[in-house]
Every structure is written in structure tokens, then in C-alpha cells.
């Protein structure tokens, strides 16, 4: 459970989950929404995957991520979003969202 809290505490990871809510996306598609390095994003994906919040489907060199949120995890995500938990890098994320 602590893995889930840790994963949801970061705004970038929460943004990844919000993006995956629309449809499954490849790592490249997801990276297009952020101005961070691929290595940093890969670390974020890894945290989300270990917490069981996303699933990765590897086909050749392409990894497609899809959402695997339980109802309570979804509620936790909404709670963290509403109260802005872990918004240290919020300004940067805002700029990324507006891109």
C-alpha cells in the first residue's frame, strides 16, 4: 500500500495516470506530454508499474502502458489531485500541461 501512496504523491506520475485514463499510450506518446528526460520518465513509469497502477505491454521495442486503477486507488488519485499533494514541481508541470 505504501508503494501506491508513494506513486500517487508525485504530480508527474499523477499526470501520467490522467493521460492514461483517455487510452493506453506508448512510452514515446507519454513522453511527448512532458519536457523531462526519457530516463526520468522511465523511472516514473517504473514506480507506477511496481505499485500496480499501470501495466506495461512490450511488443518489439515499443512499450504500451495502460491504466490498472482499483476504485479506491482512483479515489486516492482524485484526493491527491484535489488537495495538491506533493506539488513541489507544480509550476513546471503546469507549463507542461499547457504545452
Amino acid at each position: 500500500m505504501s508503494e501506491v501512496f508513494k506513486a500517487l504523491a508525485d504530480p508527474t506520475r499523477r499526470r501520467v495516470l490522467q493521460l492514461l485514463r483517455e487510452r493506453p499510450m506508448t512510452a514515446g506518446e507519454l513522453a511527448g506530454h512532458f519536457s523531462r528526460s526519457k530516463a526520468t520518465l522511465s523511472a516514473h513509469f517504473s514506480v507506477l508499474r511496481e505499485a500496480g497502477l499501470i501495466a506495461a505491454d512490450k511488443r518489439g521495442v515499443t512499450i504500451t502502458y495502460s491504466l490498472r486503477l482499483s476504485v479506491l486507488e482512483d479515489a486516492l488519485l482524485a484526493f491527491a489531485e484535489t488537495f495538491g499533494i506533493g506539488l513541489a514541481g507544480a509550476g513546471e508541470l503546469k507549463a507542461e500541461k499547457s504545452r
Partner: protein
Amino acid sequence: MNRQLRLILSLITLASLVAAVGTLAWRWREAGDIAAVFAGPKPVRVVLLLAMPVVMAGLLAFSVHAQAGRKPGRYEAGFVGLTLITHFALLAAMQGWMILVYLGGVLPDREYVARLLAAFMGLGMSVRGNFFAKLPPPERDGLGGWSRTARRSGLILFVTGLALAACAILLPMPGVITALGGTFFLVLMVSQAQRRATAQLKS
């Protein structure tokens, strides 16, 4: 199926078999005559008593030998395990009731049992609804339609389960029966929606 789950289900099945055979032996010992075991207005009860462990053993054998197309995820295994344990526990509870009826024992208050079962069903449904969206799609879900339906279905099951449990505790008996009917209808709707999403995914 992991060892722990197999052990739990085997123990419930064994307990059911011991309870059925023990009940019949008790009646035989009391009457001193094998014919007394089948005597009474409803001899079918003897068959039903013995049928419970047979049904459980059949379910267990079926589950043990079920072949998954791929390695199940950790949530998938937990989901199936929880469902099996819930169903086995319900079968055991039904058998317990039948034993009390057969032996002419003091039956617990019917309303109390009905409320308890409805609350148990509601909580079970809620837990399973919570994990429903964790299940992987049966095929590659490129557009995410199946997953979206699963998330919606999970939420409906979760909320309905909690509402059913609350109704079982708070409402008068006719309200509980209405809530059970409503829940059954919603579960049918959710199953239909999921079935359609799966068909779309496979087409």
C-alpha cells in the same frame, strides 16, 4: 491457483463432507435404524446434504485443473481466489442451515440470517468491484474501451455492494428484498456491458 488458496478451499470442502456424514451418522445413532436416516416428509434433504461437498469438490477440481491462457497477474489471482472463497463460504452456510432443518434444531431468526447474508454479499461484491478494473483485458486493448468499461463496472459494483450492505443493516425487510432485486438487475446490466466490451475487443 496457489497452494494457500487450494488449502483453504480443500479445508472448507472437507469440513462440509464431515458435517454431512456426521449429521447422517448422528441421525442413524439416535434412531438406531438406517431407514430413519431417509425417513421424514422430505427425504431429498439427505441427498442435498451430501450434494454440497460433492459440488464443492467438483468446483475445486475444476479450478485446480483450469488452464490459464497466460500467466495471471497478482490482482487477477487474488480476485479469483476471493470469489472462490466467498462462494464456498456461502455453500457452507447453506449446508449449515440445511443441517439445522434436517436435525430439527433451533433455527436462527430467518430475518437475521437474510440480513447477514445480504450484508455479506454486498461487502463481497464491493471488494471484488474495487479490484475489477485491475483485471487485464482478454485481448490487446489498443483504444482502452474495455478498460474504461471495466473501471465503470468496478465502480458500479463497489457502490452497489456498499449500498446493499447498508440496506441490509438499516432498511426494513421489504426494503432489503427490493435492494437485492435492484442489485441483481445492476449486476446483470454490468455483465452485459462487459460482455459487449469483450465482444467489441475481439471483433
